[in-house]
């Protein structure tokens, strides 16, 4: 291995979009186009059992009948689903160990600061016995390259592997839970994902186990004209706990690329799942050319009593973000949380928020959303809090704050409350503020340059959300905020 790692952190957070390089590896792709034959071919390449192929084909039939949603406050040219390739993977058999992984791929992760060797740590994080260790699942286009710490996790009974391996080795778990939180018919993109999904991560934490390390899935889009359709399923059995992180980047390209993921979380009685995302897909250039369309369905089910699901997201990338991590609070006394920072600059568009559906008694949810818009961008919060008839004494607190930088950007909030209970407590607070000339002048007069000043103000604005992130991610996230806002002032 080279000695490059310490500087990798700098590469990652460097000026402009540092993760925008292309890795030159031989890839096998399925040619663009989508029909039953393509789906059958994806399933064959992944050696899937018949039931899963059947499941995919049914989803495909559903998808054909579904209209593309248009209600979000985003604007883009129609996507030609026949022009996309639905599968790309480095050629050759799946490597059995890191020694078999193409060195070019290893270098890619080094550059990104993602450790694929167990003795390494995340770039930017100090090696310290108190720092929790991180197991990594590295997903490159449609396949997982490797998952670290698998054996050690296995000793605790924790399964952490690629989705494909889970289908192979734990089909009973996959079959039991797949689609139980986000059914294929849920929405247009979920149906598409169900038909063509490639790799993603799978986590199972057995009863009473506290997962001994953070689990990080790192998604990398590399191939051109290819969509990424990851599928992630996390199950926390009774009384267990897991903290899962995901990060994502893609090369800079002039065409838009589609990323349509589905993530399902299941928390059984007394279980707790903490899911953190730092989304840094390529956002497109200053003129709005290129960038990822990030159309994602993420939902957690608090199935058991006293279960707890918490989403934290820092969304800095993508040309368009369409994403509503949600929680269904079915178990009595269950808790759902959503903490979000969404930042848009230049011509980025984000329509994001959360849905909290209260079914069980005494359920409570919290939504804290911080939207930051700069440049010509548009940033919308969309949320829905629903109290079903059985949700006795359910509570929700929602706070959405918008911060505007400059005068050409826009912020919108679309909160919906549907309560069928008179004893429900629903609180909603919303604010909109601006980074003012006066604030910048004060900072600059004290010697702080404008970009640093904006970063400081934005970090202050998001503090409540950033502190929900695991330490490894918090540092990177606040630096990413700074990079995303480059050119937002002056």
């Amino acid at each position, binding site marked *: 291995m080279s000695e490059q790692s310490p500087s990798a952190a700098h590469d990652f957070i460097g000026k402009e979009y540092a993760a925008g390089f292309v890795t030159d590896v031989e890839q096998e792709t399925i040619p663009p186009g989508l029909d039953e034959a393509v789906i059958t071919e994806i399933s064959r390449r992944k050696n899937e059992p018949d039931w899963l192929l059947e499941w995919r084909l049914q989803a495909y039939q559903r998808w054909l009948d579904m209209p593309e949603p248009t209600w979000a406050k985003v604007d883009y040219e129609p996507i030609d689903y026949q022009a996309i390739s639905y599968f790309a993977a480095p050629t050759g058999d799946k490597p059995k160990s890191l020694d078999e992984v193409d060195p070019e791929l290893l270098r890619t992760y080094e550059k990104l600061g993602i450790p694929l060797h167990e003795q390494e740590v995340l770039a930017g994080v100090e090696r310290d016995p108190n720092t929790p260790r991180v197991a990594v699942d590295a997903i490159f286009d449609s396949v997982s390259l490797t998952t670290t710490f698998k054996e050690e996790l296995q000793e605790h009974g924790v399964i952490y592997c690629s989705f494909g391996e889970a289908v192979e080795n734990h089909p009973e778990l996959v079959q039991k839970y797949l689609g139980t939180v986000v059914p294929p018919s849920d929405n247009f993109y979920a149906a598409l994902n169900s038909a063509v999904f490639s790799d993603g991560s799978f986590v199972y934490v057995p009863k009473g186990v506290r997962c001994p390390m953070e689990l990080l899935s790192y998604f990398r889009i590399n191939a051109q004209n290819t969509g990424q359709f990851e599928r992630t399923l996390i199950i926390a059995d009774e009384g267990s706990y897991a903290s899962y992180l995901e990060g994502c980047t893609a090369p800079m390209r002039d065409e838009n690329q589609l990323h349509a993921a589905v993530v399902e979380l299941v928390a059984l009685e007394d279980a707790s799942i903490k899911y953190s995302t730092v989304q840094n897909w390529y956002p497109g250039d200053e003129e709005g050319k290129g960038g990822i369309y990030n159309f994602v369905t993420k939902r957690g089910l608090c199935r058991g009593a006293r279960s707890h699901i918490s989403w934290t997201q820092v969304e800095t990338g993508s040309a368009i973000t369409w994403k509503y991590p949600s929680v269904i609070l079915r178990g009595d006394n269950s808790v759902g949380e959503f903490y979000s920072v969404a930042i848009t600059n230049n011509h980025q568009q984000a329509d994001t928020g959360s849905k909290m559906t209260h079914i069980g008694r005494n359920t409570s949810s919290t939504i804290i959303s911080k939207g930051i818009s700069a440049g010509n961008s548009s940033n919308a919060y969309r949320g829905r809090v629903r109290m079903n008839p059985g949700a006795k004494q359910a509570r929700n607190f929602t706070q959405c704050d918008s911060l505007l930088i400059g005068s050409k950007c826009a912020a919108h909030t679309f909160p919906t409350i549907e309560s069928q209970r008179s004893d429900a407590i629903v609180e909603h607070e919303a604010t909109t503020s601006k980074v003012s*000339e006066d*604030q910048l002048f004060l*900072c*600059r*007069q004290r*010697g702080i340059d404008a970009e640093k000043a904006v970063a400081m103000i934005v*970090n*202050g604005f998001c503090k409540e959300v950033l502190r929900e992130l695991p330490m490894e991610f918090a540092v990177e996230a606040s630096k990413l905020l700074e990079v995303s806002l480059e050119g937002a002032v002056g």
Partner: protein
Amino acid sequence: MKLLELRGLAASVDEKQILNGIDLTVNAGEVHAIMGPNGSGKSTLSNILGGRDGYTVTEGEIELMGAPVNGMSVEERALTGLFLGFQHPIEIPGVTNMEFLKVAIDSHRISLGEEEMNTRDFMVQVRDISKRLELSTEFLKRFVNVGFSGGEKKRNEILQLMLLQPRLAFLDETDSGLDVDALQVVARGINEFRSDENGVVLVTHYQRLLNYVNVDFVHIMINGTIVKSGDAQLAHEVETHGYTGLGEA
């Protein structure tokens, strides 16, 4: 050493001519007071010195620390040693006073090629200054100027002044809105700051500040120019007779 020199300075704000030819020199070791009626251009002068967007020099020259300021950005002027105390200190929600001060002092140190200040030394120094200004340490954890009383905001400006140790401090009505005790605290801060190495310009409406701070010169500004300069005695004259008869106004 000349810290500030204005020669025939005229300036406009958003195309409106406000300053109409100002000559002023501030040398190291001097304290000047500028007095003048509302709207005479005192705060405009402060913004012009700071290099704020929208404020344009139309004629004349400004030299800071012996060099013309032409083309210097707001932060460059700050880093050469210009400090502006604001008439209306602005709030920055979400950013604690402590963070703000740390980033500010580090920006100064980095520009001098020094390392960032060690957190412990920083804390010790900031606590010490706060104590001298009779500000509780609780105050450092609060967001910059958010919910501060008028007097606290002004003391916070002096806190920044004492921490950053600029060469030239231009304090715009730092004495306005202060009760008698707070006025003495602020005056003490200014007196502790002043030295043979630096200079101070106090913009004030009240002679009472000059009971606590000895000034070398008093200038009367009316309609964007200095119509009369003198010593501390001039402030007493203004206090008793007002500005009538002093300017062409």
